[in-house]
């Protein structure tokens, strides 16, 4: 990925993220989130993590954000008041955000040789084949057990979400 392409992607991503956190309408914010996730997927492609990019699009954009959008549609009505933050909270947010960014930048400036040396990862490291072998491998470095644990977690989560969101029988 060229520097220009990276700069473009990064710019797009930051702009989308800013939109996502500042938009008055939550639905717009969700759209901003989609855009930011999409830019991230592009970045992943640039980093040669193809499977990750695919998963990003499928799970985040196709799953999570759609879920978010549905929730927004379920819970908002026309004429809802626009929830604007007060000025001191904005200032506080800027302050904290700046502090964290400065902290990260500081860490980077001190990182030194951590950032140098060592070549790039092999071309095929993030391919479907490599990730599949890794994820379902049972030998050294194999991640089959975490994979299964995560699947159980997902199942539990689905059941929990249904249990919480289900309309109580005696309600309404």
């Amino acid at each position, binding site marked *: 990925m060229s520097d220009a392409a990276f700069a473009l992607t990064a710019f797009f991503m930051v702009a989308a993220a800013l939109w996502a956190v500042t938009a008055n309408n939550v639905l717009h914010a969700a759209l901003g989130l989609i855009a930011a996730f999409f830019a991230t997927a592009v970045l992943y492609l640039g980093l040669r993590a193809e499977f990750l990019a695919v998963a990003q699009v499928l799970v985040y954009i196709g799953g999570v954000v759609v879920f978010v959008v549905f929730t927004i549609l379920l819970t908002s009505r026309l004429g809802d008041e626009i929830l604007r933050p007060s000025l001191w909270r904005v200032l506080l947010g800027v302050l*904290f955000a700046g502090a964290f960014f400065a*902290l990260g930048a500081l*860490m980077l400036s001190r990182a030194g040789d951590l950032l140098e040396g060592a070549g790039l990862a092999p071309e095929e490291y993030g391919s479907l084949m490599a990730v599949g072998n890794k994820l379902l491998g049972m030998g050294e470095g194999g991640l089959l057990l975490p994979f299964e644990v995560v699947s159980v977690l997902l199942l539990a989560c689905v059941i929990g979400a249904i249990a919480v969101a289900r309309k109580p029988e005696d309600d309404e």
Partner: protein
Amino acid sequence: MIAHGYLILLFPLLAFAVNGLWLARRNGFAAGLFSILMSAASLAYAIPLALEWFAAVHGGDASAPVEAWRFTWLPLEGALKVDFSMILDPISVMMLLVIGTVALLVNVYSMGYMRHDPSRGRFFALLSLFAFSMLGLVIAGNVFQMYVFWELVGVSSYLLIGFWYEKPSAVAASKKAMIVTRFADSFFLLGIVLAAYAAGSMDFSVLNGSAIAAMSREVSLGGFHVNLLFLASLLMFLGGWGKSAMFPLHIWLPDAMEGPTPVSSIIHSATMVVAGVYLTARFFPMFAAAPGFLDLVRVVGIFTALFAAVIACTQKDIKRILAFSTLSQLGYMMFSLGAAATVLGGVNTAAYSASAFHIFTHAFFKCLLFLGAGALIHHVHANELDAMGGLWKKLPLTWISMLLACLAIAGIPPFSGFWSKDEIILAAWQSGHGLSAALALFTGFLTAFYMFRLYFLAFHGEPRGGHGEGHGRHEDPWMTVPIVILAVPTVLSGLLAKDFFHHFALPHQVLSESPVEHVAWLPATAATLGILGLFLAFVLYGRRGADAKAALSVEGRGGWYRLILNKFYIDELYLFVARRLLIGGFAGAVKWVDTNVVDAAVGATASGTLRSGALLRRLQNGNLAFYIGAFLFGILLLRILGRLPL
């Protein structure tokens, strides 16, 4: 015989254990018999032991103490250890015999006196404990062992004075005895610690010997320079001061009359109060080496002797008269020990032996006097002389014995008291204390007066009410027999033991001896004064036509009479000090500090916790953004203040 000397102690201890744990609740009579048996065994062992010991040391150095046995009880720091041992020297062996005899006779007497008391089993158990404690005290070879038994004596006297605990006055009296003697004992304990620290040992042999030189130095105490030896001596002597009820710590002894009369008898003759004198005698070489210390002992002794004799002249309660006479006689003993310091700076050993001699004779006649008084009280069911009079017909044997005892304590020759008292005054004169000797003579006169006041008012004249049932003799053999037995040493002990004490009962480490001159006119003067006192009492109370009721009446008396009758208001002074100054002043201040500082601090802690909690609750404001912000802020803080890498 000597090696198993502990048996003398074990018999009364066994009686205490068996009676106290088992027999007392079952059968009071059997408990009494067992106590009598055990005290008889104790005495039966003590007599041959004493004979064997005297025979053993007869040839050699008579005043060298012999240890019967010794074992280490508590090994402390370095050479400092606490042993249990039994030392045998003239005074300890003499005390063994005296205590054994008195304990046995009092036990026998109590069989009659306590006949109708439902809890007499407990009484006999405690009496045995008392005898055991006192026996242990006199054989102690070191000051720590002595202190252990010293406190045992204190606690058994507390239990016995308060024996009739359903009577509030008895409870108050036992409390008073306990508090006053404990107050003095605390100084004794301080003295023990100080001496053990300075001398590195608690053994009498060391404290009275090599330690004297080590302790003769000045120490700085809060800016004052005091002689360490004097300080240690004073602290230890304060223990004896309270136990022997020397002025001004005498106030517990008259009140101790609330106990049953046999208890008074044993307290006043052989145990408890004699312990203080015994302590002083035991530490005699050390006290004598402390500069000016014996003068203090002498002044305290003679003052108490005179002071108590004056009070005794006005009292109406027969037991109180005897109590004050005990105070007076104890004052004599202390005075005698103090008078051993001659004006020239030497040590007059005759004064020491005179004191031991007086302990010996006093034990018998005072025991007899109390037992006789108990018989009188038992007969008329009252303590006051108001209810007595003309009792010689009803209690003839008691009457004769009491007469002999009164003659003995009044110092009429040839009865025992004359000899010992004469020795004391003579020794004081020889030591050069003319004024003290004169005061002692005057006290002797007063003694004769108040004792025969008691005698005439109780036994002669017209009967003045009381519950004297019917006519004829009413004497209980359980009570009369000990009284009559005691009359024998009352008469003879002075005459027979005079030489023994004069040559034998000497302090085992004589510091220096000064030549003494014998004064022939002194005994004659003492005897004359005694007879004068007797005669005065006869004129006032005993002659035909004397008005006993008027003699006992307080009406129309001058202020001085009331002053003396009320014991110079010493008790009231104590109450004033205790109530107003201690409870009102000091305790009030302490209470103020407690409420306003201690409690306030506790309250401030509680309310401070509540207030800070209330402040912290405000953090739980339910605002999610605030929580997130706090969380992020915490991360920043961790990064800045913590030691995370990079």
